[in-house]
């Protein structure tokens, strides 16, 4: 009995919390949604040379081409090497 009561209380609390949550963010997203919309372009049409693809430079390096680390100096890589050494050493023993 006691446990079911606390259960109910908990539910109440949860419901209250979710209600508060539901109401609080209402204001904010409205404003955010607004500028989430695809904007009107300042011009109706444009030449090929004014497209993103033709504007060059940026077009070349959009996506990473290699998975090899450029910075092997990061902590994680170093740690990983240490760990692997330990495993290797344990095996040899």
């Amino acid at each position: 009995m006691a446990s079911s009561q606390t259960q109910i209380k908990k539910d109440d609390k949860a419901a209250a919390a979710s209600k508060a949550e539901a109401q609080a963010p209402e204001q904010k997203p409205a404003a955010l949604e607004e500028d989430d919309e695809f904007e009107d372009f300042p011009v109706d049409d444009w030449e090929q040379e004014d497209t993103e693809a033709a504007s060059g430079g940026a077009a070349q390096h959009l996506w990473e081409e290699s998975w090899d680390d450029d910075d092997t100096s990061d902590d994680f890589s170093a740690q990983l090497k240490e760990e692997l050494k330990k495993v290797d050493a344990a095996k040899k023993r």
Partner: protein
Amino acid sequence: MEFTTPFFREFAESYSERSGPRLAKTLRPDVSTEKLRKICKSHNAHDIKSSLKRGLQLNAALADGLDQQEVQGWVDVYVAYWNGAKAILAARESSGDDGQSSELVWTKVYAAWTELVNVLIRGYQNCGFEAWTLPCLYVVCKHLRVFASNADDERNNNTSIDDSAAATFQDDFDPETNKRQKLEDCARVLSRVFMLCQSDRAPLEESRKWGIYYIANLLLKTYFKLNSASLSKNILNSLRAGGRDMPSFKAFPRSQQVTFKYHQGVLAFLEENYVDAETYLTEAWNDCYKNSVRNKELILTYLIPCRLVTNHTLPTEKLLAQYPRLQKLFLPLCRCIKRGELHKFDLALQEGEDEFVKRRIYLTLERGRDIALRNLLRKVFIARGFEEAKDGEKPVRRSRVPVAEFAAAISLGSQERIDNDEVECLLANMIYKNHMKGYISRQHGIVVLSKSGAFPGTGV
């Protein structure tokens, strides 16, 4: 422009030039308040119709090809515009006072402006308005959406208390729908305009079909705001069905093409059809106007998660650096994926959860964890180096990797001790998903990796 001699001349000249954009300017509601006041005051409700008729008829000779029926149609259009202008002026003046007026002024604007759209539709249906005047329809429809949103916002700010009370007592009452009443109505009006364009049977060069993508884009934006993917799909289907009798897509202005491709791409993305999504979004990106930074940012918001799933690629840091918002959104995740830091990946995903969920990219990004794991395993493979080289032969990577090494790496990456069974399970999954090629030899506690392309698509 107030309805005096210069206006009638402007109308006649636009007409004789057959210049839609020029004519459309006479129907713009986004003019200065002073100008609006002049428009409203130039006439009163009694004489507006007759003086418009007189003015347009006098100049009909100048506007060659303008017949009686058309004159009558345009008189009705400008009367409706004049009514709209009065409502807008009233709305602007009332919001100038204290912001909180008791009347719903934007609701009135919306009603007046809807009437203008209806009158225009009738103009095309009954009064012989030609397709070159379509920009008039664009201007009017574009602002209908703005006014619908204004009206909804205004109503929600005024009566929000009543609304939420109703919501708690009725289960089947969806406060969200009620909140978007006018926008939903706007969607219905716009879809009638869409039909008006689509159903035109005139020869292509003078067909209203040229208006179809402009209106489709307005509709898509509206449906997106209403969160209705299914209605958006209807538009796409309807366009596909009419495809044969349509002008070629490439013949439409780039602004319309790119806007359409963006929405088409996001829709495919939401359906988890990532291959199509990538195609559409890439097309939108390539053709996008180079100076429209915000739109490029929006395209990338979906293209980046998309490519993570389709071909497991990450954006370069250089690309992200050009878009601070995207950098904040994606860079932490991308770094963790690249390094194989599983635990930090989880944290970064959690950190950005609200933003990711809001943009509906969370579930897609979550799949990046597989790529992070793949990269971690790949690092183990690389770290093991090469077999002792035989003379004159290309060095071969050591392809037999102890499960214990993978286990150590995974434990480090996820910052918790993972036992070997679970590790084998993760490895089996990687093999199944073709992120890694090889097999597990349980007997020997090793993984035998493929000598040619152990990690497909990564160069090793």
